[in-house]
């Protein structure tokens, strides 16, 4: 931390003529800069579980009818004495539960108790290779789940929540106390098959997901009770890195960006190569018959996250994407985040709308709105909609968003609320108001890290009045690092 260096610096300034040479002052300033960016709290290490605590209402009032829990996942332990994760995606997963009941909010958090975390706790060193972390020879990896950080997203599953990663099994945790139950095997012969972090929920309750291995993908189809309905392996036209996919009520849509695996290597990013000349392909599969497929071509872009898709009557398919021009954030920017200092290369992602026409043409139109973590109305998953909630305010060089917004694709404009650079704003989920049907009759619920106060906050926005700011804000006693993705269980 920096206070002692800051006070030394200020003291030095006051006494400069008498004591400090310019060299001393410069040296102290360099130390101060090296000590960390103002946003470094967002990637701090958490040393242990955080027992349930009341959050204090600091703004507005709890909306009537908002009852439930926001479960959120994200990395919360990067650094150990014998070696550290060097990439934001490789920290140990910590499940957070923000519970709202009777107008009160609480927060608790527990680490996913994974083999990776056990090994690294024992060795007091991060040794496991990951997405961008090299790891070392002490790693113990007998299967992909031995490297599973369980740190990316959440899926509700009865009285459990599943902590999702990208390249391994879901990890079941108790929804009531966040204790770890173990990896989920959906069928014995599918043990360890990758189950990615962004399942898509169909209007009929079916849950679809994917997992990739080079040039093939497993397509998961789960029943509403989270049991397995079917799993099929399909070939892909290319071995793209894929973090997300999307779906209409009738189609699965796999966006194959030109960031492709060429050979096997660890960490993952070292095997990936950016080939913009290949363009981006969009593979559309018919949910009813996965052998029925259609391939569309788009110019090259990089993305992590897609919005829910929909199909129109004439067969036109549309979906949104948080797109950027290259994978520099994934390779280098995410390392800056764990360093806790430095400049993030490249430009922040912008929202774009992709249209796949029945005649085989595809087009992508950028809104020019800076945004990430797109989320949409769950009542309209796979169906026509006009709104996308997203984070906002990220600027060139500085990582992490500072506001929230809702983009209206019909009007092609975003209504935003900017907290200011003292807040790191995380993904917010769409929570429909009880009994309401209109798309904007919903709340956005999501946290932020208040850098000024050193605390985690939970905000509720009215989707119809985002620019008015939160209708309620609670503040915790602690600051948890910024997470990735969450799920609301009402």
């Amino acid at each position, binding site marked *: 931390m920096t206070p002692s260096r800051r006070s030394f610096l200020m003291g030095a300034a006051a006494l400069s003529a008498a004591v400090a040479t310019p060299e001393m002052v410069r040296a102290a300033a360099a130390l101060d800069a090296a000590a960390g960016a103002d946003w470094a709290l967002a990637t701090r290490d958490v040393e242990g579980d955080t027992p349930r605590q009341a959050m204090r209402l600091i703004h507005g009032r709890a909306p009537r009818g908002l009852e439930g829990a926001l479960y959120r996942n994200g990395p919360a332990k990067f650094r150990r004495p014998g070696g550290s994760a060097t990439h934001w995606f490789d920290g140990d997963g910590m499940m957070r539960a923000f519970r709202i009941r009777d107008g009160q909010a609480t927060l608790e958090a527990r680490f996913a108790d994974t083999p990776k975390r056990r090994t690294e706790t024992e060795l007091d060193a991060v040794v496991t*290779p990951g997405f961008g972390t090299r790891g070392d020879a002490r790693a*113990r990896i*007998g*299967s992909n789940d031995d490297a599973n950080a369980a740190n990316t997203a959440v899926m509700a599953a009865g009285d459990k929540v599943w902590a999702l990663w990208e390249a391994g099994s879901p990890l079941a945790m108790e929804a009531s106390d966040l204790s770890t139950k173990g990896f989920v095997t959906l069928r*014995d012969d599918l043990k360890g098959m990758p189950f990615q972090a962004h399942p898509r929920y169909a209007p009929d309750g079916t849950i679809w997901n994917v997992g990739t291995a080079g040039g093939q993908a497993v397509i998961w189809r789960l029943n509403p009770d989270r049991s397995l309905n079917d799993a099929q*392996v399909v070939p892909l036209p290319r071995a793209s890195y894929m973090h997300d996919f999307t779906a209409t009520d009738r189609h699965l849509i796999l966006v194959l960006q030109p960031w492709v695996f060429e050979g096997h290597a660890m960490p993952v990013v070292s095997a990936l190569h950016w080939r913009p000349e290949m363009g981006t392909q969009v593979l559309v599969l018919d949910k009813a018959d996965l052998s029925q497929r259609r391939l569309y071509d788009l110019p090259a872009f990089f993305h992590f996250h897609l919005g829910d898709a929909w199909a129109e009557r004439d067969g036109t398919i549309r979906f949104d994407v948080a797109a950027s021009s290259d994978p520099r954030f994934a390779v280098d920017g995410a390392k800056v985040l764990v360093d806790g200092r430095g400049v993030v290369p490249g430009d922040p992602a912008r929202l774009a709308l992709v249209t796949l026409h029945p005649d085989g043409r595809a087009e992508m139109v950028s809104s020019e709105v800076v945004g990430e973590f797109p989320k949409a109305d769950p009542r309209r998953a796979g169906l026509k909609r006009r709104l996308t909630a997203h984070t906002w305010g990220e600027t060139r060089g500085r990582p992490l968003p500072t506001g929230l917004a809702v983009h209206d694709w019909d009007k092609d404009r975003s209504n935003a609320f900017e907290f200011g650079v003292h807040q790191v704003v995380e993904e917010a989920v769409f929570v429909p108001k009880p009994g309401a049907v209109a798309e904007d009759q919903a709340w956005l619920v999501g946290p932020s890290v208040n850098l000024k106060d050193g605390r985690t906050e939970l905000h509720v926005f009215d989707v119809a009045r985002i620019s008015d700011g939160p209708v309620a804000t609670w503040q915790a006693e602690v600051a948890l690092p910024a997470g990735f993705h969450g799920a609301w269980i009402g």
Partner: protein
Amino acid sequence: MKTLSSVFAPVAALAVAAVVASPAFAADLTLSFPTAAAQGKIMVAVFDSAAAYGGQGQPAKVVLLDAAAGETQVTFDGLPDGDYAVRAFHDLNGDGKMNTNPFGMPTEPYAFSNNAVGNMGPASWDRAKFAAAGATAQTIDLK
């Protein structure tokens, strides 16, 4: 008064003589798989060299335990003293193969001696090897 070293010197000399006289003492190696489910068979291979363990040679001992009948332990009597490592897998469905998922990852439980875990592959000889001398036991968790 005799010193301790003079008391033990003849014993040490005897031991050296014995080693020279015969290839090695006999070791009785007991392998237990207490967490194995009561189904299928457990295939166990014991190796006495890094080369054999690495696939360049035959195992010193091989056994098939009938886990379905509750057999989860085996003792190999009279092994020469030395370093050994064990590979084991639980053929749950009894098809004689180590089954894998569609992406080639094992779906049936397996383990190595010392409960060693590899680094994106089988546990290395260095992680799995143990010295067997006299009564030696390894408790192995198949997972």
